[in-house]
């Protein structure tokens, strides 16, 4: 309070501190380091210019005939012409609405599952139903839908289905493997270790070959499993081995007191795993989980070597059309863009989850 007669010592007004102004030339070329950085930066900008020139200024967006694309600019018209092939592969053109519906359904399901609040058994059941609907939509043969064999499936729906299904099926397997690796029972522990280390020791390409080519030879006569199914199995077991190690890391970070508290409260083992252990273990390892998910999305493109028609294979086959002059750069850039959108989306989502977790921990 301002007592009467109080004496105030005002602080003298002062000018802001003087900032030494450096001439621009000195900032840019002042010493060896800045000079080097400046030169490198200029070099990078200069080298990008022709790319921009190619991609935007000289580019052809709309052409009457493929021949117009001869003069060296990017031929985006090619993507327009081949979009259907790249997106849907050899899927019968008249039925492509079904492939579109599958893509939309997957995206809708992913959007609907973003909030961790909704992660429960009901959502799992909805996912199982949705996957069933997607497979029926793609394959047909019932409900008046024309039958389309998996050999005709292709493009983005195949990529998305492989990514979602391999990760989705791998996850419970990975949880079992991770728990098994920490089991006190030697048999279970050795089996888990053997599976994880064996699969991690193999390249995915090798695993795909085994699944696509060797497996049909090894199976008893009369047994056939669809090639897409075998490929999916290979991707799933591969993802499971990596996810298992990530989840094991999360389990190791879990305080023993959590399990003791759950036991003392009489919570049965599997319910404890599902409601107490896994949510915390997973929260501990969101960044490496994201990393594995992104790697697996991109790994789906490797199925092209065993002849499964994913988006990358479809783009490759689009480039073989002799009517168009060398359009492979454009095709691959287009596919790369779609992969980037998917993977960047996963990254953003994981950042969002992490922020949520840390807000809860230090509110």
């Amino acid at each position, binding site marked *: 309070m301002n007592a009467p007669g109080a004496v105030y010592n005002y602080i003298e007004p002062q000018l802001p501190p003087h900032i030494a102004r450096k001439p621009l030339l000195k900032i840019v070329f002042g010493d060896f380091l800045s000079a080097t950085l400046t030169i490198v930066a200029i070099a990078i900008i200069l080298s990008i210019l022709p790319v921009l020139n190619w991609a935007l200024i000289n580019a052809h967006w709309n052409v009457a005939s493929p021949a117009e694309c001869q003069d060296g600019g990017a031929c985006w018209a090619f993507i327009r012409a081949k979009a259907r092939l790249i997106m849907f592969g050899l899927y019968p053109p008249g039925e492509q609405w079904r492939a579109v519906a599958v893509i939309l359904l997957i995206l809708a399901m992913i959007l609907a599952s973003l909030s961790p609040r909704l992660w429960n058994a009901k959502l799992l059941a909805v996912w199982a139903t949705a996957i069933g609907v997607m497979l029926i939509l793609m394959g047909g043969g019932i409900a008046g839908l024309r039958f389309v064999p998996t050999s005709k499936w292709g493009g983005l729906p195949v990529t998305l289905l492989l990514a979602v299904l391999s990760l989705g099926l791998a996850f419970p397997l990975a949880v079992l493997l991770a728990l098994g690796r920490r089991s006190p029972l030697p048999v279970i522990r050795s089996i888990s270790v053997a599976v994880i280390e064996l699969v991690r020791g193999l390249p995915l390409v090798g695993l795909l070959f085994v699944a696509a080519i060797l497996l049909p030879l090894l199976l008893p006569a009369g047994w056939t499993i669809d090639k897409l199914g075998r490929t999916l199995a290979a991707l799933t077991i591969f993802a499971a081995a990596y996810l298992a190690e990530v989840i094991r890391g999360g389990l190791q970070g879990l*305080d023993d*007191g*959590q399990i*003791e*508290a*759950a*036991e*003392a*409260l*009489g*919570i*049965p083992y599997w*319910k*404890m795993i599902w*409601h*107490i252990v896994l*949510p*915390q273990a997973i*929260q501990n390892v969101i960044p490496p989980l994201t990393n594995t998910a992104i790697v697996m999305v991109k790994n789906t493109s490797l199925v092209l070597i065993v002849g499964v028609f994913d988006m990358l294979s479809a783009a490759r086959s689009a480039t073989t059309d002799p009517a168009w002059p060398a359009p492979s750069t454009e095709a691959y850039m287009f596919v790369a863009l779609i992969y980037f959108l998917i993977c960047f989306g996963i990254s953003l989502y994981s950042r969002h989850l992490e922020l949520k977790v840390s807000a*809860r*921990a*230090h*509110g």
Partner: protein
Amino acid sequence: MSRNAIELQGVEKFYGGFHALKRASLSVSLGERVVVCGPSGSGKSTIIRCINRLEKHDGGRIFVGDVELGDDLRNLDAVRREAGMVFQQFNLFPHLTVMENCALPQILSRGTRRKAAEENARAYLDRVHILDQAEKYPGQLSGGQKQRVAIARALCMRPKIMLFDEPTSALDPEMIHEVLDAMTELAEGGMTMMVVTHEMGFARSVADRVVYMEAGEIVETGPPKEMFGNARDPRTQRFMSTIAASA
């Protein structure tokens, strides 16, 4: 039923070659409050953890209510229903809100309906005076608040016996009394309690009996007055004088 709430008969416990409990015998009758004390490593946690079978005993017999602890899993469930446990480190579930911490265990282990579980949780949270924090996460609470939630969570299972393992040792001094107050209120309500603690004030005012342990043995038990004032065993006397000096 004439049996004691807890009955230990010559209980032995080994950790590898280490003899952690040596022929420990103790009976706690219904409604009795027992405080267990003793130097670090004397087996206080071990004895409490054997009673709800977080550890298996290697010899002797343990009865909780009518049930004998053994390898029968049904008995295990029965015991866990009978005895609630409060830990030194609280062990709340950090990914669940206070409300969920109290409601979910009822749903998972008893199959209680969510609505009833939440109502029950509210009642017990109110009893430890922390209902206003129900929607927060444990990470957003003080230590004393966390421990009171842990007490409410255990009470939600409607146990007949409450086990406490150093419930105030991880707390800042200014928060100790709020937890001891909650425990005192619980004792006044007639709960059978077994508490490992060095809070002698609490032992004096609440305990019917004090148990002194050393090196895995139950050295002596008696009413607090006797144990603090004139214990028979010289080991008890020595320990009591050191904690009296440090308090």
